[in-house]
């Protein structure tokens, strides 16, 4: 977790701290997913997954409302507040992931692919 008593954190811009917090919350959800899958054989408890998703939802709520239409948000709210099954939680997590990808927080596949036979594309790619 982010240590707010650490001098380094205090001097870090709030934007960067929030970014790390979101990524940590996302990682927590993934861990809960793993735990849920591991214990599927003897119990089907979605409470941990649901609460972790709730935490991530609260962290990203403002951005979600700015970026997604009401219909999508409705699905997400249902997944967070009153999920009937694991599948609904999974869908909710996917919506948040979509947002994180769009705002480039988890977008790391930036490398442009081009046909190497296209010389002009290669020139442009290397800024020539």
């Amino acid at each position, binding site marked *: 977790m982010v240590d707010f008593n650490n001098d380094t954190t205090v001097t870090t811009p709030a934007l960067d701290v929030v970014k790390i917090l979101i990524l940590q919350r996302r990682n927590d959800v993934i861990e809960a997913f793993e735990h849920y899958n591991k214990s599927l054989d003897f119990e089907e408890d979605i409470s941990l997954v649901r609460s972790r998703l709730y935490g991530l939802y609260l962290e990203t709520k403002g951005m979600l409302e700015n970026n997604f239409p009401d219909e999508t948000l409705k699905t997400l709210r249902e997944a967070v507040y009153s999920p009937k099954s694991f599948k609904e939680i999974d869908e909710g997590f996917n919506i948040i992931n979509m947002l994180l990808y769009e705002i480039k927080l988890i977008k790391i596949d930036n490398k442009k692919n081009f*046909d190497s*036979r*296209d*010389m*002009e*594309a*290669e*020139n442009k790619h290397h800024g*020539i």
Partner: protein
Amino acid sequence: MEGNQGKFEDTNEGKRKRLLYNYGLPFSKELAYNIDQQILRVKNKKASLIIVDGGIGEGKTTLKVHIADYINGAYPLISEIKGDYPELDEEAVYGYDETKTIKFKNQMAMGGEEFPKKLGFCFEEKLPVVIYDEAGDFARRGALTKLNSMLNGVFEKYRGLRIVVIMGLPSLRTLDSSVMDKCMVRVGLHCEGRNDLYGNFKGYSAYRLNYVLHKMNKLIVKVKAYSFTVPNIRGHFLDLPELRSEALDKFSTLGKKNSLRVNELKFKGFLTYQDMAKQLRRSVNWVKAKVNEKKIPEVDKYKNAKYFDRSVLDSLAEEL
């Protein structure tokens, strides 16, 4: 090499010489696609210089003429429904329009002196391509430095010409770093290993050409640098139709002849008015006046230039 179905099929003692591939072009489609990109580039008022290099007799001039013909519109797409941004289409078939092939007289410059003139002509006539052939400069000392400064000048002043320039050089090393740094060169084609049936080329983007040049500076055998950099494309090209080949030879030889004649006169030690003026540190007019005064006859004459024996210098030196 299967199915000689080109339009220029030529029978020669029972042997057929293939002049077009089945899809209607004399060179590979990947090259056509890359030339299309250059055409789009000049349409957007950006400079485009295609370099064709290779040893003597590897078919540089033939490839240059093929590419120039293509840019000039001699090979229109049969479907002609291509958009502004063509994609590499394996099924594309090209036609041939002989009337749209380039005119050597107007669009082919033999040497640096002719190049700006031909470029100007193409601009006025709205022709999309001009060839610079090194043949005219092949025996001139200092021509390479002039070539680089001319290229810089031409491309800096005439960016909006909308003309693709195809330049033939014996080696890529002729170009200095300023030409490469200014990103004028977009495509480099290296010709090698030509045989009776076809010529071979390797195509390099400007990005890869920089690596080739870097490697060339380090190696003892300069040509070997091409085998250290993987080309973007490899391909073949076919010969020109017989009549066109003859016309090209005639035109090319004329350029070389002029240059050879001048070199021959210089080798004999003959001097022009300009040469004498330079050595005597006097004006050309002064030299002309003194030569006329002394009624010294010229020993040779070539293209309006009079050539005098070296002994004239001594007699003019007495007048100083």
